[in-house]
């Protein structure tokens, strides 16, 4: 027995030694270096129709960059499913890319880890200054009052897509501008045997994006000014209820949509089964589903008053992708140069055209390619009536807890259970209690 115990003690000691040595992963004080000035690793998010298509779009641009600056960029397009986990493991181990794309809603959370290079005045000056970027896009780059953790790269916004043919059949002459009009139009459409509007009821992200906008329209926020969760105020409850009521009370969202989380609502719309869809830049998707661009129109998401604007007339979140520099980079200057390259007018035009997004760089937006009816609506929304999701470190928990609450409310509505102010409040209270206590 003694030898077993000795072996066990030995094993534990060895494990601990290894465990402790394993912690040296990140270089906590490291601020980057210029040890390998000739290469860069770049993790790009998947923006186009597939990873291979993204590579075909990006590679020629990287070659161009190499020709201009003599720096070879090693590209990896990381699928969205894996991106955050990859970034987390990179952060923990200190072993990551030099430059990477992040979903802009993650900015504040990742900023809190301290793994990303802060974009102070000096760094911004190196890429042409802060002023080059649209304000709303800059609003989604990190917590307010701190140097941004990332720089806007691609922007997107929500619009209301509608099927022209179904609208004509139902005798609707112009798309709805208020929620009341939307519901009234929905009833007309349902009378013709079509579904009114689609939603991804089981998608946490989609749910959060929508209730965030509804809360804005009710003049409420999910977080207090000092970053504390405040999910149960009357206005927030009313906002969440208004969204869920589109299925529960107004019955314009079909109950089946409560389980959608794989973009089924887009394919319903593309097939002409639903007349309306709230989506961000759906055109490429609709095309690949076989829908003719002439068959649908796009208009701003309804607001309570009918005219989108700031304050309670907000009608979209600021969606998009930011580019960040990993603090542990071995090629700090090269990384900055590369960000400058990606955010240059020329590259902004090329890349945003290829990915059917909108350039967050003001001068690039002026390009006529971004004046098609669809992009004009989205561009205008971004410029005048879009707000960034809360820029707090616990943003990802917020998306999970509130998104889940809305998902459960939709499930209740679909099953025919009543959705009341009390039930909404109870779900939101539970969500709030699951937020980290800070």
């Amino acid at each position: 027995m003694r030898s077993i115990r000795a072996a066990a003690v030995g094993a534990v000691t060895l494990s601990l030694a290894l465990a402790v040595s394993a912690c040296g992963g990140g270089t906590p004080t490291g601020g980057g270096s210029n040890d390998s000035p000739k290469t860069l690793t770049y993790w790009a998010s998947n923006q186009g129709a597939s990873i291979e298509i993204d590579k075909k779009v990006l590679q020629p641009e990287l070659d161009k960059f190499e020709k201009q600056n003599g720096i070879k960029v090693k590209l990896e397009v990381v699928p969205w499913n894996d991106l955050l986990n990859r970034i987390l493991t990179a952060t923990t181990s200190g072993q990551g890319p030099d430059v990477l794309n992040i979903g802009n809603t993650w900015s504040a959370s990742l900023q809190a880890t301290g793994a990303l290079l802060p974009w102070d005045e000096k760094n911004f000056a190196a890429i042409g200054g802060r002023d080059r970027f649209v304000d709303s896009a800059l609003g989604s780059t990190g917590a307010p009052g701190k140097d941004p953790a990332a720089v806007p790269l691609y922007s997107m916004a929500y619009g209301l897509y509608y099927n022209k043919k179904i609208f004509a059949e139902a005798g609707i002459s112009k798309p709805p501008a208020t929620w009341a009009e939307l519901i009234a139009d929905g009833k007309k459409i349902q009378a013709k045997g079509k579904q009114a509007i689609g939603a991804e009821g089981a998608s946490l992200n989609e749910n959060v994006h929508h209730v965030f906008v509804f809360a804005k329209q009710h003049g409420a926020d999910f977080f207090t000014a000092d970053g504390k969760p405040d999910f149960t105020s009357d206005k927030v409850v009313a906002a969440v209820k208004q969204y869920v009521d589109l299925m529960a009370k107004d019955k314009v969202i079909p109950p089946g949509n409560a389980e959608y989380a794989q973009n089924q609502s887009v394919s319903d719309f593309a097939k002409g089964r639903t007349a309306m869809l709230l989506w961000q830049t759906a055109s490429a998707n609709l095309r690949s589903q076989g829908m003719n661009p002439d068959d649908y129109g796009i208009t701003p998401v309804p607001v309570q008053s009918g005219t989108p604007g700031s304050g309670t007339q907000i009608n979209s979140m600021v969606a998009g992708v930011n580019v960040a520099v990993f603090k542990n980079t071995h090629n700090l200057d090269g990384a900055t140069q590369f960000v400058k390259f990606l955010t240059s007018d020329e590259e902004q035009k090329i890349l945003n055209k290829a990915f059917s997004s909108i350039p967050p760089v003001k001068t690039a937006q002026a390009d006529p390619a971004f004046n098609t009816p669809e992009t004009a609506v989205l561009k205008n929304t971004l410029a005048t009536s879009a707000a960034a999701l809360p820029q707090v470190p616990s943003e990802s928990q917020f998306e999970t807890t509130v998104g889940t609450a809305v998902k459960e409310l939709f499930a209740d509505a679909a099953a025919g259970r009543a959705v009341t102010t009390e039930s909404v409040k109870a779900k939101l209270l539970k969500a709030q209690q699951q937020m980290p206590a800070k």
Partner: protein
Amino acid sequence: MTTTVDAGRPTAQKSSRAAGPRRGRPGRSGRAGRAWLPYLLLLPALILELLVHLVPMVIGAVMSLKEITQFYIRNWTAAPWSGFDNYRVSVDVDAPVGEALLHSFFVTVGFTLLSVALCWLIGTAAAICLQDSFRGRGLLRTLFLVPYALPVYAAVITWVFMFQHDNGLVNHVLHDQLHLTDKPSFWLIGDNSFWALLTVSVWRGWPFAFLIVMAGLQNIPRELYEAAALDGAGMWQQIRRITLPSLRPVNQVLVLVLFLWTFNDFNTPYVMFGKAAPRAADLISVHIYQASFVSWDFGTGSAMSVLLLLFLLVVTGVYLAVTSRGRRTADV
């Protein structure tokens, strides 16, 4: 193979002698003299287990005593020690986090018991059915392994496809064709999601039990069946008296690992429901994933994992004690 054939014959005749009490300790000096040999044989396994399994488990246990949120993951050795705070949060069943964990735990226990029982039953029944040769046996044997050969992602996505409310096959059959329900049911949200998850888990899991039991059946000496047949035992009695008892050693391990894997299965619920499973199907592995990766709180996630480890250790200990005792008495 010739060795087997030649050596196999005398065995059957001598088998009564072989069941003596010398189990596990060959008396020949050639083996007993080399006490280091078993350790040498174990060494590669030992090194790998230590490196890839045990050290990470110890690191995980250390993490559970720290506050590892997004503010500290970059350099988690510097993260503040939080003592047993993470554990306290996890087991405080009056607060939402603890309550949700407990609920998830019960769901997982129920799900695991049902899934393992069904996988084992179907797998064993299928293996026994395919023991005798008949036309099409080879085909069925291959066919039954197909669910196991499909990539998890594809298999689960296909089931999700079939469970859809509006367009799925399941509602098409149950509602449109057989008229068993008044209106189409929801399978991916609400309470039914538990049964949907169970179906997928059994569909993917039973071929494994089938595979292992089938291999186990090959080691049952034919003489036993012949002797039983001479005694007048029918087919059903042969299965009960010979097949099932002979499978006991295989089953002991099979049921245990099926239990452990099903309990900790991550892929199936994750592909099926994503980051937030419906409450009725909130399995503990996804729950812990959510607590650690989605909420960026690896301390609490690790604490939950350690609690789970302790629970499963107890279950396994009891299980092994009970089944081993039963096995020993059965041998006598």
